[in-house]
């Protein structure tokens, strides 16, 4: 039988540190492995998701080019609410410009940023708007998402369709409560105000830059 020496404080500390280090290595390895293994599948479903999203704002019959490849980079702009470069997709039919699909951010939602995707027709009118990301109160401000909207026939977010920057005034482009044109649900007006403002600014951006955007390589 061997007699164990009582461990020294330094010995204990080193032993504990080594064990913790081994655990960190093993589990970081596990994470890295899972990440690399699932990466191709995740990227594929992200692209598919993107197409599905674009389908909601712009029907596939409207254009005949390969939308995900006909892109133009938009620099960060306060009108888009973007803090870094975003990508816009240009829809064309028979070579003629049809619509621009772009992302916009409403920075002043009730609970942080609300991210939007929208399609603006060549004539300046809105083809469709969808919310892609938000943290608005569930059951209250989340009616900006059509699938959470109780009004299934005419979801709130579709009321922008057909309106354009040039054909309306700033005054009309507000919730009814503020003397404007758009509906809102009582008790949750911060959310629609933010979305309405962001859509207005984004259409302004397109109206101002349309020619360059379609011409850019």
């Amino acid at each position, binding site marked *: 039988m061997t007699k164990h020496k009582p461990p020294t404080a330094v010995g204990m500390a080193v*032993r*504990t540190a080594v*064990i*913790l280090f081994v*655990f*960190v290595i093993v*589990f*970081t390895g*596990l*994470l890295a492995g*899972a*990440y690399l*293994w*699932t990466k191709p*599948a*995740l990227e594929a*479903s992200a692209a598919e998701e993107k197409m599905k999203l674009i389908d909601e704002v712009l029907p596939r019959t409207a254009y005949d080019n390969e939308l995900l490849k006909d892109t133009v980079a938009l620099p960060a702009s306060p009108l888009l609410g973007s803090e870094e470069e975003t990508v816009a997709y240009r829809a064309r039919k028979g070579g003629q410009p049809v619509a621009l699909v772009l992302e916009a951010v409403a920075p002043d939602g009730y609970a942080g940023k609300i991210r939007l995707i929208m399609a603006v027709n060549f004539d300046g009118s809105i083809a469709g708007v969808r919310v892609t990301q938000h943290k608005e*109160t*569930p*059951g*209250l401000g989340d009616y900006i998402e059509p*699938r*959470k909207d109780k009004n299934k026939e005419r979801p709130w977010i579709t009321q922008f369709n057909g309106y354009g920057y040039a054909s309306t005034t700033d005054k009309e482009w507000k919730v009814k409560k503020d003397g404007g044109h758009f509906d809102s649900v009582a*008790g949750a007006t911060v959310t629609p105000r933010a979305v309405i403002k962001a859509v207005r600014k984004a259409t302004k951006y397109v109206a101002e830059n349309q020619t360059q955007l379609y011409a850019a390589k």
Partner: protein
Amino acid sequence: MIEREEFRSIAHNGIWKQNTSLIQILGLCPLLAVTTNMVNGVMLSLATIIVMALANVAVASLRNFIPHEIRIPVFILIVAALVTVVDLLFNANLHELYLVLGIFIPLIVTNCIVLARVEAFAAKNPPLQSTLDGIFMGVGMLWTLAVLGGLRELIGAGTLFSGIDLVFPSLQPLQLLPADYPGLLLAILPPGAFILLGCMIAWKNWIEARATTRQEKVAVKALATGN
């Protein structure tokens, strides 16, 4: 294997006696945020069951290698890594299910229920018992959140099972109160969750207290007749 009596005790602990929401009062943050309707509450609980079972079995299997002094950082490491792996695998392989359940998984990483069960149970018990503990703690959470979510939804909006069409596209939510029911905003907002959770805790305590007084009465009677 496991004895019947032990199984019963673990199940009873998880579902009623040590109910995470009503007795341990853990994980309130996701509870408040998510139980605006019944379907969300159930979905969060299902995701929690999966994560808790996995975290418990992992910690229980490794428990003899984890020095006591650094157990908490190691537990956090194990739980966070496992949850992230589950999240990635779900997203890659079961994408449809992920769309429904996935948003709840990150909510669980920071959930103290998982760490609490790992520390209180899995660190001291074998893997099988620990898995069962994780599952039944989750089941306890499931019924509590289902009731809480159902109540909030019913009082707040007059509906039940709203959002079920996201899980089963063929099903429709029920409109229980008349369609012109104005709704009670308080029930949907976080204070409503606190109030209703408080009511549920009071209800559970009332049942327990009644059971205790009954037992005492029986005991007193037995004593009296015995004399």
